[in-house]
């Protein structure tokens, strides 16, 4: 039996020691050396993608980028627990989850380059596109789960959100609906300790995981930088949902090692000592230590992992820079599913206006 009110669950120590937990171990008994190495590879690749995207923003190729640096284990561990038919409702920082779901790298940055309001078709990867309004997606996940419940399938919705989002009305209402209808949904809260400049203490005076039981939802509080604990907790929650036992709340305790977005400057509000402390809990370092002990890390493995990461970064860069700008008249596309005469008239008028400049002349650059 899983105790749903424990302190922080950790299955991998900072030193890379596997910590035995009889209640959790059965959920990750399949994690042999190669399986752990695969998780490590994912984490190295997504960190490399993240670094490359930040560089692309600095070089003016992206308008904005929300780094996930430090949250690789929380995202990879949870995403790799899912089945293809489960459905992800992310916030805007879940780019590692997107990678694990098979979203094309170019599609991940499409929205951050300002080319589109979303980068991929949600149905092709069973993952919704980024939700920027804080916490709104938790209700969407709950509704999707209500649908799965009515369809009598055992697919599960998982929604990602941060510590800050737990203050929004939408998130609290999602918890109430999920509990009321025992919906097959997982509330995966990455507590990264910071909502832009506000420390988690502004949002909560107790552990965030402690809130869920008040809504009638069991919760787990796990070390979010421990990919094994994350995988185990997500599998437990998925199993409950598939069995018809309703929602589970997971608080993955992690840390936003970078800025909120590339537009943010954490030196204005964050003690550098705190960041230094969290660097010692780096999710990649700790898994690397375990893999080294297991004999999985060889120079060849290191080189191959690095090559994989570099190739991903190169693909991202090429795809980003090579992305064509959207056609001007596409500004009118997809507003409605059905014809709209008012909008069509605006499109026609604007097309005529553009034509009045001639083919080489672009408006918007003065007369």
């Amino acid at each position, binding site marked *: 039996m899983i105790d749903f009110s424990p302190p922080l669950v950790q299955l991998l120590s900072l030193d890379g020691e596997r910590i035995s937990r009889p209640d959790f171990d059965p959920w990750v008994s399949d994690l042999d050396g190669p399986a752990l190495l695969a998780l490590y590879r994912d984490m190295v690749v997504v960190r490399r993608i993240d670094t490359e995207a930040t560089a692309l923003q600095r070089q003016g190729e992206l308008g904005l980028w929300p780094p996930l640096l430090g949250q690789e284990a929380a995202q990879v561990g949870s995403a790799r627990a899912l089945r293809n038919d489960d459905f992800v409702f992310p916030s805007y920082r879940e780019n590692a989850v997107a990678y694990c779901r098979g979203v094309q790298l170019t599609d991940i940055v499409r929205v951050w380059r300002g080319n589109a*309001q979303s980068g991929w078709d949600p149905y092709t990867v069973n993952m919704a596109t980024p939700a920027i309004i*804080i916490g709104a997606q938790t209700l969407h996940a709950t509704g999707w789960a209500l649908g799965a419940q009515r369809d009598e399938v055992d697919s599960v919705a998982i929604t990602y959100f941060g510590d800050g989002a737990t203050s929004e009305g939408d998130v609290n209402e999602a918890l109430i609906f999920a509990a009321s209808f025992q919906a097959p949904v997982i509330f995966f809260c990455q507590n990264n300790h910071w*909502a832009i400049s*506000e420390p988690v203490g502004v949002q909560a005076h107790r552990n965030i995981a402690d809130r869920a039981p008040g809504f009638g939802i069991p919760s787990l509080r796990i070390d979010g930088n421990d990919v094994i604990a994350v995988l185990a907790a997500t599998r437990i929650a998925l199993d409950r949902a598939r069995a018809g036992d309703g929602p589970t709340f997971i608080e993955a305790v992690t840390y936003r090692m970078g800025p909120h977005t590339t537009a943010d400057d954490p030196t204005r*509000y964050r003690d550098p000592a705190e960041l230094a402390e969290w660097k010692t809990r780096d999710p990649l370092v700790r898994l690397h230590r375990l893999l080294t002990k297991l004999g999985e890390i060889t120079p060849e493995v290191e080189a191959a992992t690095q090559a994989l990461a570099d190739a991903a970064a190169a693909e991202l860069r090429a795809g980003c820079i090579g992305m064509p700008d959207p056609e001007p008249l596409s500004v009118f596309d997809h*507003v409605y599913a059905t014809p709209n005469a008012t909008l069509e008239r*605006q499109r026609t008028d604007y097309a005529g*206006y553009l034509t009045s400049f001639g083919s080489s002349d672009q408006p918007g650059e*003065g*007369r």
Partner: protein
Amino acid sequence: MTTLMTPSIVSTVPGLNAPQPSPLSETTTLTVAKAINEGLRQAMLDDPKVVLLGEDIGALGGVFRVTSDLLAQFGARRVIDTPLAESAIIGTAVGLAYRGYRPVCEIQFDGFIFPGFDQIVSQVAKFHYRTQGAVRMPITIRVPFGGGIGAAEHHSESPEAYFTHTSGLRVIAVSNAQDAYSLIRQAIASDDPVLYFEPKRRYHVKGEVVPELGAPMEQAVIVRPGTDVTLLTYGALVSTARDAALAAADEGVSIEVIDLRSLSPVDYAVVEASVRKTGRLVVTHEAAQSGGLGGEIIATVTERCFSYLESAPVRVTGFDVPYPPAKLESHHLPDLDRILDGVDRVMGRR
């Protein structure tokens, strides 16, 4: 393991021990953002009941730094970093107002106001009417608005018409540093609730600021006189409209540019006098056309000045589309060329 459970280290706030700045005492050149900051500072010095609420307004000074250094000067009891909940920011401001406070709420971005929409429309706007004047709601809701900064979704919107459509609210949009300073002070001093829209893409534009309250906030201002066309706008587009007037002057068209300043109520005395003089009206705003403020103003002007009109009034607005991605926003936003195209139309040149 237990260290992971420790509450976050309290941040060292730069500037907490810095000397407190004195308020403006003479004409100073300030950015729009700094002018609002100085207006807030003066309002807080003038009235101890003025409190600020919002996300990241404390140590960070707001994502646009509009509340910079106010936490250091006035402390956390008056500069309140709130949890992330817009409905709660507005709803608790109602409670504070009940007790005689003058809350100033910051909504971080235009597109984030909607979780607080119910509290604004159903509560803030109606209290005075509901209680037959017994309960006043001197709440100011500051909203950075508009596009042109290449931002992500929900960061470039112009939601003003939702609020001008709501009786019981005053709505202000400022265009320059002087008005930013003067009108934030007037908005806070007002016994009615005020939506105060800040021209996001002009935050860093400098202008001279005289530390005075200036003309009442409900007055529109003619920022450039002219005789052929009345060009009416507000917020960030005032600057574009002024440029358009300069360009049109080269082609022999004299444009009178009006900065509306107050979107609710509209200063129709100034608007009508101008239209009676020019006989032609162009209204431009970034917000979508259908149901926008331009339509309302044109309808009113047409009712009152029909016989003075030489041509049908024209709207130059954002399209009836959700705010588009950054790479398309230059097409959506009215710019110099589109405004001049509108001028050509009222002049019968197209």
